């Protein structure tokens, strides 16, 4: 019903439709230049950070677990927006001036690192102890067991929750406009500022995000299927 009315509002109003069509390309450009590279780079580095953090938290040394815990707790406990501000403006006030795009990458990677580390930790813990022991009995060291036996199995378990983190990240990148990075949502705001039709443009942005997330979920399915290969 709502959607109907909305479509009606849009189509009854040819100006609205024109605006919709004309703003599509700038927004897609915003996605291609901002949203997508931000997401991909931050996710990749974030996952590596997450892996290190997860392994630190699983260690039996306090001097490794405590920093990992504090990091995870601080990042998960505070708003993304503030993290961006601290990296960009806060470090700037203290004399470390980092450009917008790398600042965004740092903040988002730290964010992904914290959330994903919990996922990875849980997935490592979910692998039966027998797998560690079997690896040990064929002579593997901790690192070898982790790399060759545990992580490949943990990967399968962690794909669905990691894809949640990923999808959240796609949308969180819209915050990057606060620190001068132009992306999809910023584009919609720019156009809305000119035309004052913010509802239409925000809904359009939302649809684009949806499309991106949908495509990503297809990719997720593919990866999951590949990893399912070896389980019944």
């Amino acid at each position, binding site marked *: 019903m709502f959607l109907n009315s909305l479509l009606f509002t849009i189509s009854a109003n040819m100006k609205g439709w024109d605006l919709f069509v004309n703003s599509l390309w700038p927004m897609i450009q915003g996605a291609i230049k901002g949203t997508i590279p931000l997401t991909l780079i931050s996710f990749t580095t974030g996952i590596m950070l997450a892996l290190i953090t997860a392994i630190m938290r699983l260690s039996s040394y306090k001097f490794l677990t405590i920093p990992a815990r504090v990091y995870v707790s601080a990042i998960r406990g505070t708003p993304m927006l503030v993290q961006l501000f601290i990296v960009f403006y806060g470090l700037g006030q203290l004399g470390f001036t980092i450009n917008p795009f790398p600042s965004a990458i740092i903040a988002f990677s730290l964010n992904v690192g914290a959330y994903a580390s919990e996922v990875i930790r849980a997935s490592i813990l979910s692998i039966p102890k027998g797998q560690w022991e079997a690896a040990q009995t064929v002579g593997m060291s901790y690192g070898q067991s982790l790399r060759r036996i545990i992580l490949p199995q943990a990967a399968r378990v962690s794909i669905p929750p990691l894809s949640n983190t990923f999808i959240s990240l796609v949308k969180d990148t819209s915050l990057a406009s606060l620190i001068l990075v132009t992306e999809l949502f910023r584009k919609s705001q720019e156009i809305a*500022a000119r035309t004052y039709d913010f509802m239409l443009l925000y809904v359009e942005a939302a649809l684009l995000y949806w499309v991106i997330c949908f495509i990503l979920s297809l990719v997720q399915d593919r990866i999951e299927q590949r990893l399912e290969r070896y389980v019944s």
Partner: protein
Amino acid sequence: GTSDEDNSTSNQDTNAEGASLYDEIMEKGVINVGTEGTYAPFTFHNDEDKLTGYDVEVMREVAKRMGIEVNFMETQWDSMFAGLNSARFDVIANQVGINPERKENYDFSNPYTVSSAVVVVPEDNTDVTSFDDIEGKTSAQSLTSNYEKIAKEHGAEIQGVEGLAQAIEMIKQGRVQITVNDRLAVLDYMQQQPDAGIKIAAQQDEVSETAFAFRKGNEELVQAFNEQLEAMKEDGTLTEIAKKWFGEDVSQ
């Protein structure tokens, strides 16, 4: 009291050799300017997606006359002063209204816009004809703006919104009765959205002035801006730019 004196006179404005910000800018030949890019018709993206608007053009002209390039850095109003404080920008060109509180924390150039506050009401409204009538009415305002203060001073209840478009949407939906805003911005809105069903019900007598905002302690830079602004006033360039955007001279 605020903590900004410390920030604004902090180490970043003179480098190790003691050169001032002005010297630095002139040497590099580029100035970093903070602006929203989403505040039409002052600073926004046109159909070709180019940053433009009154403030943007004035800024460009000033820089041209100083013989330097402009590097606009677009961010939201919320982080505008954070960007200035942390020396991300050297100046803000974004219709920053001059008021005593801000003056305590920042330096201002001479004003380049003179406007006034107006009350916007639904087209069919008849009971608001002056600023005195808004007492007790609910007004949609951007909470960080000058106009919020004006509305409050006249006894309106405040509802916070993100910008003019949202404020007017609130009026259209009957969630609030009025909004107090900048006359020029409202005029632009009414030109873009002629069917909006709103009108200007009253205009303040006192004028409000907006200017470029700088961190404190950069008199040399402010001075340089003022010189150029004066020159632009004298040779009519400023008036020309104003007329291009508003059809009238809003610069004085």
